[in-house]
């Protein structure tokens, strides 16, 4: 099994799906000769031509709305939003329209589109190149929202997303693109949407996370193992629909739960997970459900010390788990 990066996994999934299915095509800004600003589509225009790898004008509403129209008309568009921060002009077409097409036509039309969205911080992106935008989408029934953390999951989930018959928001954490490496088999495989995975088994505390900071949770768990605290780390992988079974099974085992995400806390995904635990695992809980998340400021600042202040880190996470374990 070759070891590759997250961005390589994304690129491989795109290429293989375009080879497999002629209705798959790509649209977005700078995805052609430029190969995408993160090089996710590097080489695709050379292989598939500019008919199937379309450089759009600088217009995100277009990317959302045209992908939607093409999806309704039998294609499987994979659209790229250059940075998650620029997705807002597209939400009218995604949250307002794509999510409701199937329901609002009683199944007479469907929208099998994928919106790939590089998101997240820790990349010196400042206020407008670091955003976490999952909440607005994960709240909308009709959408599926996927957020892989590893190359294996990125490739397998992107293939599932492209083959899915509903609109999928595919969140790629920018900082993982080149940082996170992992084994990925050469052959064909998919990872199912809607299924979380225990990335590390443990008995003392359950930590639920996703994306970049999932890796920080694993780092923290490794540190704490040396201190005798045995942490189970659950990777959500999909944010809608949530795999509450896996989360609850873990909490029932450990009796202590913490949710960790980079996005700001109030109203973040962590609230939903905590609520599910507080409702369905109440009798099993030995301690308050705790959250580690981004601070209540509008976005991540640019200057290095300010950015560090925003980001959850393995140390911050370990400190919080220590407290919970000691409760």
């Amino acid at each position, binding site marked *: 099994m070759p070891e590759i990066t997250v961005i390589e996994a994304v690129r491989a999934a795109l290429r293989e799906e375009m080879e497999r299915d002629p209705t798959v095509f790509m649209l977005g800004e700078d995805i052609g000769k430029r190969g995408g600003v993160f090089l996710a589509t590097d080489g695709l225009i050379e292989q598939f031509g500019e008919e199937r790898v379309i450089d759009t004008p600088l217009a995100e509403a277009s990317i*959302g709305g045209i992908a939607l129209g093409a999806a309704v008309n039998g294609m499987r568009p994979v659209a790229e939003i250059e940075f998650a921060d620029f997705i807002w002009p597209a939400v009218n077409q995604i949250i307002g329209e794509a999510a409701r097409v199937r329901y*609002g036509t009683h*199944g007479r039309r*469907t929208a099998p589109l994928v919106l790939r969205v590089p998101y997240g911080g820790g990349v010196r992106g400042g206020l407008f190149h670091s955003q976490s935008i999952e909440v607005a989408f994960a709240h909308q029934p009709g959408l599926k929202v996927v957020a892989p953390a590893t190359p294996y999951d990125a490739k397998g989930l992107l293939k599932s997303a492209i083959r899915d018959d*509903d609109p999928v928001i595919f969140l790629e954490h920018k900082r993982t693109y080149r940082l996170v490496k992992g084994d990925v088999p050469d052959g064909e495989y998919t990872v199912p949407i809607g*299924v979380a995975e225990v990335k590390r088994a443990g008995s003392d505390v359950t930590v639920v996370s996703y994306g970049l900071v999932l890796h920080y949770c694993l780092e923290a768990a490794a540190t704490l193992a040396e201190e005798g605290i045995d942490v189970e780390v659950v990777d959500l992988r999909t944010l809608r629909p949530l795999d509450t079974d896996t989360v609850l099974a873990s909490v029932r085992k450990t009796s202590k739960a913490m949710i960790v995400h980079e996005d700001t806390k109030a109203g973040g995904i962590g609230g939903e997970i905590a609520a599910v635990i507080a409702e369905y695992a109440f009798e099993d809980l030995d301690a308050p459900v705790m959250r580690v998340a981004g601070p209540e400021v509008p976005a991540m600042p640019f200057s290095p010390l300010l950015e560090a202040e925003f980001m959850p880190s393995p140390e911050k996470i370990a400190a919080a788990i220590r407290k919970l374990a000691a409760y």
Partner: protein
Amino acid sequence: MTDADLLEMYRTMVLSRTLDQRIWQMNRQGRAAIVASAQGHEAAQVGAIRALDPERDRFYIYYRELTTMLALGITPLELLLGFLAKDGEPLSGARQFPLHGAIDRSRRDIVSFSNVVATQLLQAVGVALADKMRGEKRVTVAYFGDGASSMGETHEAMNFASIHHLPVIFFCENNKYATSVPLSRQMNIESIAARADGYGMPGIEIDGFDPVAVYEAVGAAAIRALSGDGPTLVEAVVERFLPHTSDDDDTRYRPPEELEDIRKFDPIPAMEKLLRSSGALDDALDDEIKGSAQKIVNQATEDAENAPFPEPHDFYEQVYAPGSPGDQS
């Protein structure tokens, strides 16, 4: 255009007007929740469809397209089921407002997902892009009002369609009002068609009371689209004879003289006169056309009123694909 063509257009216009009046009346009696009337738009809508192929082409309509729907073969009963939110409604299973949803594609490609103004334009462009990619020769018509011309998405749709020479007709029914806001507060120009230049496509302004003029303009646009030359903006200038919807009161913002003026010319009697003067229509035929419209609408009204409301048994269906993650049905 033959007399037979003109007569068929006249028949559809009369049917549309008859049905429209019935629905408005039912709303006033508390029997239909909300209605947007097509009265004043009939000539433009019927003329446009005449120039297109209902089986070949794709229709991204908006809420004021009652005549378009009839011209495309959707029946008065089906439409009335929608206005009454009854079971058997063919667009959305009565989940949506009247005229919203989509017709089974096997029958017609008519789509109007949403009430959100102008969203259909970008979607129509995406639809046409897919046709072009597959090499299918079809026209996609994106219908919209003058109000929709102000939305940013409209700009983006026209720009993209023109860059890629897509087979789209942007069909604007300019009735000079976005609800209560007159053209003068919507734009600092006289004609929306004038915007076409800025996208590198042809734009034409026509009298939307003249179905033949509309037919010709749309026909030329269809030829252009099918030849791979790209989109056209067709602006049909019409009047909105009634308030914006049944929830509106146009006397709040339209001066009494204006309200009187706009009713002075009505495309349906005008068409009648034209057909009579050419000898294509006489009293007997006119009576038949009007009488049969009345009969059809009466029967449809009765049937629609007798139909049940849909029960929530399939409430959770079609949120996600059957069997797919998240499916609760």
